[in-house]
């Protein structure tokens, strides 16, 4: 569960959405704040369902939140 090649822009998107808190995003997606922290730190690769939930919470497409990064 560490060193995932899936990078994300969750932190940037939170700031662009009026400094949405991690807890606010977690509540919007039905997950814990710890999971949002782990995602932002790149320590956890979300399921496809959670990835879609996060993208929907920001009102963007999934490819605007997540991208594949070769090591």
């Amino acid at each position: 569960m560490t060193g995932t090649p899936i990078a994300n822009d969750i932190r940037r998107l939170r700031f662009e959405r009026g400094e949405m808190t991690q807890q606010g995003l977690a509540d919007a997606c039905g997950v814990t704040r710890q999971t949002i922290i782990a995602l932002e730190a790149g320590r956890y690769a979300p399921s496809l369902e959670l990835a879609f939930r996060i993208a929907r919470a920001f009102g963007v497409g999934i490819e605007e939140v997540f991208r594949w990064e070769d090591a």
Partner: protein
Amino acid sequence: MSAGRDAMPAAFGERFARNAAAGMAGLGLFAAIAVVVQGGLFPFVSTAACLALSYFFRRRARQDEAGGRRAVEDERDRAFVARGDRVFRLAASTWMVGLAAALAVPPVREVLAVPALRVPGLLLLGVAVANAAGHATVAALYRRDRA
């Protein structure tokens, strides 16, 4: 709460795993002394009852934690618990196979079989040890993820 730096607080699953690992280790110690060595019937029954109810301990703790509409656990927690379950199965299987192998050897069988509750006590002890190993694994995974 700031949207900036993030100290990751211990999740419900981590706190429960830590407490459960300590509890199961204590229960295993109790079973080893009071059941396997001393052969007490009441300790045997109480250890078996604790193990049988351990599933409900987690459910109850989760219900206590879930106050509002916030999620208490999610897919990341379930992934940790699944890895702990694999360690539990491995530890329990190893213990049972080891005990079965020991019982197949006549001198060992005689030593183990003399007090009436020694073998049942060893079986319960194995379940407690496997539970402790599983919970400790989950706690270690959370800890590693927070580091």
